[in-house]
């Protein structure tokens, strides 16, 4: 039976804080739940590693993606398995979150296993790169993940080459490259995007604008506020997404990916966000000094998990009391416990950690191997 909304009904119903875009509007309630779970997974990866390091089980610098997880999750969610990605230092979860929709434990998934990624973090022989390079410098030809060097923006040319080759082979794969806003100042960023624009290559450049490049604020890196405007110099689309809202990221990236897959060429998607802590964990204390407290508070005020839950409640895909479960949002590694995360997230990642911890280090002699490919 149809009912007509009265004026007082309309008043009672709160105004939606966000209107879904064309792509996110098509997401199912299951998609919503999966996305939320993935946000928790990314967050848990981050805080778990910090805890592991505090426990002394881990060395090396950690580049936290805390508060930026919606960019990783929302960007990857709409990709096809055979699409390529090129993550950087702040995107560690991306390695195992690629193609997660094909099943978290699906062995044929076109993404790394969480075991492999943890093995890399722990520097074990079971890392995809056998722990020869550090941090996020892994990749997989088989899983279509480009291996970065440290040199920022340095993989965008390779992204162009990968999809150029794919297109020649009749494929329609898109490549997503992740970049901090600071790295857009690199010369090779310009050369590669220019090349992609000339050849209409399906390369989507994701700019995670977290306002800071290490200790340098964005206004000293670029003369405009919106890094998406870099696109204008190449005549390619430059979209802006709310990096705290996984739906908006999903929408803008999907738009860019569709554009790319249709042969219309590259684009840039700037996702506005804020780095929660220091540049790396070695920088946490200093960052607290060089960044004004109110800027940090403001920047962290919209935790992507909280934003997601709120929207799901609005959309009716999460019950208000469910939204009070697993309260990881807004908390740092020292404040959360495993109870703040869905058990499947904790279990999944724990398998990765235990695998890594129990994996052997590579043998010393490997240091001298694979300089050249021999015997062809």
């Amino acid at each position, binding site marked *: 039976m149809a009912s007509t909304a009265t004026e007082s009904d309309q008043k009672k119903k709160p105004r939606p804080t966000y209107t879904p875009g064309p792509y996110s509007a098509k997401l199912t309630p299951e998609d919503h739940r999966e996305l939320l779970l993935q946000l928790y997974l990314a967050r848990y990866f981050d805080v778990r590693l910090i805890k592991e390091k505090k426990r002394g089980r881990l060395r090396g610098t950690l580049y936290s993606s805390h508060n930026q997880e919606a960019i990783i999750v929302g960007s990857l969610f709409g990709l096809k398995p055979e699409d390529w990605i090129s993550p950087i230092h702040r995107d560690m979860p991306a390695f195992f979150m690629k193609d997660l929709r094909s099943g978290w434990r699906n062995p044929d998934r076109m993404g790394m296993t969480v075991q492999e990624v943890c093995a890399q973090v722990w520097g074990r022989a079971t890392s*995809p*790169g*056998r722990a*020869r*390079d550090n941090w996020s*410098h892994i*990749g*997989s*030809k*088989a899983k279509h993940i*480009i*291996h970065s*060097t*440290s*040199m920022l923006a*340095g*993989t*965008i*040319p*390779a*992204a*162009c*080459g*990968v*999809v*150029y*080759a*794919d297109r*020649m*082979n009749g494929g329609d794969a898109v490549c997503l490259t992740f970049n901090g806003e600071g790295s857009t100042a690199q*010369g*090779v960023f310009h*050369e*590669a995007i*220019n*090349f992609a624009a*000339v050849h209409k290559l399906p390369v989507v450049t994701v700019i995670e604008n977290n306002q800071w490049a290490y200790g340098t604020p964005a206004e000293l890196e670029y003369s405009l506020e919106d890094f998406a405007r870099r696109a204008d110099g190449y005549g390619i689309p430059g979209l802006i997404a709310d990096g705290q809202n996984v739906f908006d990221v999903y929408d803008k990236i999907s738009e860019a990916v569709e554009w790319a897959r249709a042969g219309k060429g590259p684009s840039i998607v700037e996702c506005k966000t804020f780095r929660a802590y220091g540049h790396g964990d070695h920088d946490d204390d200093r960052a607290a000094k060089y960044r004004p407290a109110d800027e940090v508070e403001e920047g962290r005020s919209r935790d992507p998990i909280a934003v997601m839950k709120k929207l799901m409640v609005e959309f009716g895909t999460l019950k208000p009391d469910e939204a009070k479960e697993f309260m990881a949002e807004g908390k740092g590694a020292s404040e959360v416990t495993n109870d703040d995360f869905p058990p499947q997230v904790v279990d999944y990642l724990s398998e990765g950690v235990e695998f890594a911890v129990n994996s052997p280090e590579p043998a010393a002699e*490997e240091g001298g*191997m*694979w*300089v*050249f*490919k021999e015997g*062809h």
Partner: protein
Amino acid sequence: MAAPAVSTKKNYLTALKEAISEEMGSNPDMLCIGEDIGILGGAFGVTDGLQAKFGAERVIDAPISEAAIVGVACGMCLNGKTVMAEMQFIDFISCGFDQIVNMTATYHYRTAGEVAIPMVIRGPAGGYGGGALYHSQMNEAWFANSPGLKIVCPSTPKDAKGLLKASLRDPNPVIFYEMKELYRQRAIEEDVADGDEALVPLGQAQVRRKGESLTIVTYGNNVYHCLQAAENLDKEGFSAEVVDLRTLVPLDQNTILESVKKTNRLLVVNEAPRTCGFAGEVLARIAEEAFEHLDAPPSRITRLDTPVPWVKPLESFVLPSVEKITEAALRVCRY
């Protein structure tokens, strides 16, 4: 009297052109990328006709972006292609430097063998043509000190073709130095085979001239200066053995060692700056490995530690010459 047979001899440039064309023909997964290599056919014409034959998708006229050229090529190789990337002059390789030494050279190493990058970066190199600071460089030492790169420098048409073909089949990145002053040199034209028969494997030096008194190790254009110097030495009663390295990395140390064990004297000649140049590397290796066999100090003739200046007298002043080589060789022989 019968009409003289038409010469089938080919110059160095034609040999290179054939190598690329043959490999493009037999390897459908091979591409070429570089500035002005398609429509124009290359600044020197090494890729002349290639785009007409294989299409603009496989023979790409790139923007003036050396870093992108190398990096794009690297990505293509990552995704299964073989790529020839041209530097219009090898001097401009400095603009793509990071993509070579950090992205490309290390790819196999950092992926523990998962990824191979079958890329050849080639370009016109070397002095003696009045090209000045930025059209005369021999910068092979930068890459010899960057693990993961093979380095090749042919001196004859046969080697130019054979080594380029081998480089294009090698699963590793190769920096390929072409001696532009030899491109069209008539005196060195020779018969050059077709197809697989033309292949010259990487990593093998070639003794260009047998001798007993002294080993001269060199490569590229300097091979001819050394051969001329060897003739001067003949007149003085010394016979020089001239070893043309052809491939610098990996180095054919055995051929040099065997020669030095016979002659007991070593002179190394190249046209790159002296300090940390490849001549010094050869000298160092032989000093380490064949110390007991040396009857005189090992010696080298190189470019001075200067850029290559433009006008002739200045250029000659800083580069190795037949005279300088002869003089140094005599000094070593008479030691």
